[in-house]
């Protein structure tokens, strides 16, 4: 599997670290326990299109949002995550 890094071009999956479901957002610090439970533990885990984060550790070290099909491994898009978004 090769991931099309927006900075480096197509690179082997072995250069990247998987960071999981990109649709999960971190709750506010004062959010209740249910919100944290949902963000930390609960996942949709779909078979099919999946939006996910990959960290290009063995390359430009950017965090990338990848659109990938979990049933076929086909990748349909990859974009840089803005620094603001990544820190959330």
């Amino acid at each position, binding site marked *: *599997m090769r991931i099309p890094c927006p900075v480096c071009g197509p690179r082997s999956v072995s250069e990247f670290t998987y960071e999981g*479901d990109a649709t999960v957002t971190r709750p506010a610090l004062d959010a209740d*326990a249910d919100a944290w439970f949902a963000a930390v533990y609960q*996942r*949709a*885990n779909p*078979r099919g299109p999946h939006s*996910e984060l990959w960290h290009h550790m063995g390359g430009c070290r950017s965090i990338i949002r990848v659109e990938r099909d979990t049933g076929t491994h086909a990748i349909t898009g990859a974009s840089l995550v803005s620094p603001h978004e990544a820190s959330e």
Partner: protein
Amino acid sequence: MRYSLSSLIANTLNGHKSWPVAWRKAEPRPAYDAIIVGGGGHGLATAYYLAKEHGLTNVAVLEKGWLASGNIGRNTTIIRSNYMLPGNTHFYEWSLKLWETLSRELNFNAMVSQRGVINLAHTPAQLDAYARRGNAMRLAGVDAELLDRAELARRVPGLDLSDGARFPVLGGICQPRGGTVRHDAVAWGYARAADRLGVDIIENCAVTGFTFDGDRVSGVETTRGAIAAKKVGVAVAGSTSEVMRLAGFDRLPIESHVLQAFVSEGLKPFLDTVVTFGAGHLYISQSDKGGLVFGGDIDGYNSYAQRGNLPVVEDVAATACAMFPSLSRLRLLRSWGGIMDMSMDGSPIIDRTPKPGLYLNAGWCYGGFKATPASGWCFAHTIAKDEPHPLNAAFSLDRFRTGALLDERGAGATPRLH
């Protein structure tokens, strides 16, 4: 027919023409007392123990493909109970005890081989941790022994024990009662034994929906029509999230990941135990046909594809060669992938759900095969009594909300690390 020496002789003399089928090709009936979704090892074992231990024989097992087409036929066949946390230790030890008598219990030779499972240690700290684990196991009544290098050299002649090894081996821990089991025979044995007790095993029957009477489950919709049931148990491993979504559970503490496994060309006897690497992740044993059976880490990203990628193949092969340099020119015969239901703390879920009559068995991570008998046994108890057995009480679905996690590895809520 009961399998025995006399039935074998009679059928041999008869040219093997009159063996009866091992289980019926059942057609779905309109209603059952209980339905188990998933005709893999855990589902078949659950149906067997429902009938055997709880007298519930009006039971159907629904399998979307053919029997045992998932992880029960895709694993590296290792059994062991070398856990440290109390919630895990007693459950897996019960599983190992069930393995020890399984062939007689099912009247089917599962080829249970207690050849020992050895974990290698590569640092003094790791050896200390193994001593602690071994003591915890022995206090819980499980067998464990520490091995020094001389003993490892005697038991595993091919292992690189030199100081020049990439990660020099300092010692190890062995669970002598661990070993391997013929995985297909486990599925066939449970299927045949459950069928003999009256359980309907229905293949090519995919569940497409659940029906409810209020909150209480009333049955399932399938590709072969609607089937009513008072209780429904779901044991579908990697497909857990997709199946439970049909019942209204949009999110679960599970990610599905692909785990690859490998078989080499056949060798003469080379390894008569199971060995695991301690400085990476590899577990290896030799099958009765002579092939080396081994596996390593999951690929590490969400996948339902039942096939993995080459970096992990290379990593696993390199690890095998670091342990056994003499394997460097060995050829692989096959590799394949299975879909693991990786839970958020690395431990499984066997529990009721918020919907009465609906039960969940999931989150087995790498460890589903060795758990097969106890998983079925505990899930059957949970379904029949509508409450968990003390052995699976810690495997609750709401532990992620309450914080009573069972994180054997201490990796936190990162499924790819368990």
